[in-house]
């Protein structure tokens, strides 16, 4: 009996030692956005040596602590880095997984892109998405938020296309988890966080997709509530979603628009109630900022003065 247990333990150990590392987080689409000296969460399949790689600089990283947090060396130069994990059996690299900023900006521009809609074998959709992302990434954008279905078919190929398009961008881009409830999407990107800190501001993703969104029984509800509480002290709390409808889950709406009201909700589709376009979430304090119907990209300036639609270049 003892012999069998020992052999099983040895087998398990040798299996673990033989596996190449895999980085589940961060990755393009769900990157770490940090300043030098910050810590960021890393999710690894195996113990491995970590490093940041860029053409002009390379930094070894300390192993993540018990909470999975990895400390960025204070001397790290600003830039976009691949995260590399290496052990005796192999190396795994996530392109554009870590974006290092010199400092958090007091005022910045955020771009909201909706409905990328990539699909396996659809070159036209890919070039349309690439054009929208390139436009969104133009200066002075500091952060890109992507809502709506990023893939139409939820296929593994489309997920790989999404990651590769986002990895080519010079600014961090974050996918709000929405309308991509496929096994392939979950396998590729994992469970997306409900909340994101960007300097003094907090962003929250609302998944309002599907016929029965944000039900009271949904496990994600606890994450949404907890993120909202954790980021309560943010300068501006900003929701991001493809659409707002009064029919989305009541409890989620109560958490986000009543108990701890968001300041602003960015949507890609102008919402209506009984035929009338809404200017604000009807619960009260949260402003609605819909994207214009004729553009896949909407920019906003975020500053001490608030969150406002950015004036298009040439119209200042």
């Amino acid at each position: 009996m003892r012999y069998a247990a020992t052999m099983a333990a040895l087998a398990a150990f040798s299996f673990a030692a033989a596996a190449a590392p895999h980085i589940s987080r961060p990755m393009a689409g769900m990157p770490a956005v940090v300043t030098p000296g910050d810590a960021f969460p890393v999710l690894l399949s195996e113990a491995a040596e970590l490093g940041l790689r860029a053409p002009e600089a390379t930094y070894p990283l300390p192993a993540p602590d018990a909470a999975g947090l990895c400390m960025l060396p204070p001397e790290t130069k600003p830039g976009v880095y691949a995260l590399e994990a290496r052990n005796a059996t192999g190396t795994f690299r996530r392109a554009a997984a870590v974006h290092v900023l010199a400092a958090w900006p007091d005022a910045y521009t955020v771009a909201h892109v909706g409905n990328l809609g990539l699909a396996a074998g659809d070159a036209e959709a890919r070039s349309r998405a690439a054009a929208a992302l390139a436009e969104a990434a133009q200066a002075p954008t500091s952060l890109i938020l992507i809502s709506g279905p990023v893939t139409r078919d939820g296929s593994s190929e489309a997920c790989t296309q999404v990651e590769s398009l986002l990895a080519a961008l010079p600014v961090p881009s974050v996918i709000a988890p929405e309308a991509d409830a496929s096994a392939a999407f979950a396998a590729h990107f994992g469970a997306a966080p409900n909340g994101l800190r960007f300097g003094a501001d907090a962003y929250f993703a609302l998944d309002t997709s599907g016929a029965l969104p944000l039900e009271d029984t949904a496990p994600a509800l606890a994450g949404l509530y907890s993120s909202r509480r954790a980021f309560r002290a943010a300068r501006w709390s900003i929701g991001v979603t493809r659409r707002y409808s009064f029919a989305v889950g009541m409890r989620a709406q109560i958490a986000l628009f009543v108990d701890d009201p968001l300041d602003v909700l960015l949507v890609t589709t102008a919402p209506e109630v009984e035929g009338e376009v809404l200017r604000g979430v009807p619960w009260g304090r949260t402003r609605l900022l819909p994207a214009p119907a004729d553009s896949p990209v909407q920019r906003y300036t975020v500053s001490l003065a608030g969150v406002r639609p950015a004036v298009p270049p040439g119209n200042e």
Partner: protein
Amino acid sequence: MRTRHGILALLILLAAAVPAAALEGEIAFLRGDQPASRQVCLVDLATGTVRPLGPGEYDGAPVFSPGGARVAFAAGAGAARRIHVVHVDSGETQVLETAHPWSDHPAWSPDGGALAYETGAGAEALPLIGVYTFPEPELTPGEETAKVTRETGEAIWAGSREGLLRPVYLPNLDLSRFLDPRHELQVPGVDIPRLWEEGSATGALLTMGIDLRDGAVRTEIYVVTSAQVMPLLLDMVIKESARFVEWGVAVDRKGQQVAFETNDGGDREVFVLGRRGAIDMSNHRAADWNPVWPRKGDWLAFESFRGGRRGVYVVYPKTALVRPVAASPDCDNWSPAWSPDAETIAYVSNASGVPRLMVVPFHGGEARALTEGATAEAAPAWRPRAGK
């Protein structure tokens, strides 16, 4: 002497063979990783056997009839969502014929003879309240049931007022004894004596009501009968006159206490409205929500974030004593459901990484999973035992 020792040894062996907390009964629940594939299933607690009851097309949370013979739930999406009623033992399913294509959130009448539900044009429409009356009540004569004469089939209640959600039946009209404002207040458009008369004749519901006038949302609790709608007039019992957002109304089995959530006090709290007025039972700076009454006993279960994560707690309304039942800093626990004898609470936990059904003895003890597998589970509902 030898025989006595033999019997003793046999008893010890038997005791060891029976699990410390052997459970009996059945629990209906939802199983499925995505909303589109969620299916109402039933687990036999003695054997662990799971069998499907629903079609597995966006099935909604199951609700047992008071006698436990049937279970109701909504299913379907897209063009139509219908109320399904499944006879648990035979598996026979009745899909209710409703005038509107989208129905959800069914609630049984106290005698099992009718179902109230939200109904309307679609998921985006403000719903009406439908009541579907079956030919016969479920509970046997002699039990305390509302004995009323009704036409079978569907009727739209509340005078066809839109924006009413999450109906629950009032077991009786005891509430009227301490809420009846006929001598003190006038409610525009509501004939209050007639409302209570209607309630006596055909039953009465409590619902949440959405008011979208002036581009702003308000929610309140309403008393609803076939033709009448009246706000529960919480201003009478809550001293503050400011308007709060209420949700999650639940009536105790005697019809004498109404639990609900409100953000009165600055955060979400569970209040109980009874003879002493409306009292904050949970009173904590973290959110408290989803009150659930047992069919026996006086404790009230609810969910709270007071421990840092979503957890299941109980409160004794007479003293507002709160204690945790399933709360952990490492995982979320939610959706409490009482066993018929109120000795055990079923709930959902993501302690294993996937939402799974768990049970825990109400008076303390070890929690354990009810099923095996890695598919997500949700919305447990314990099958009542007929006549208990």
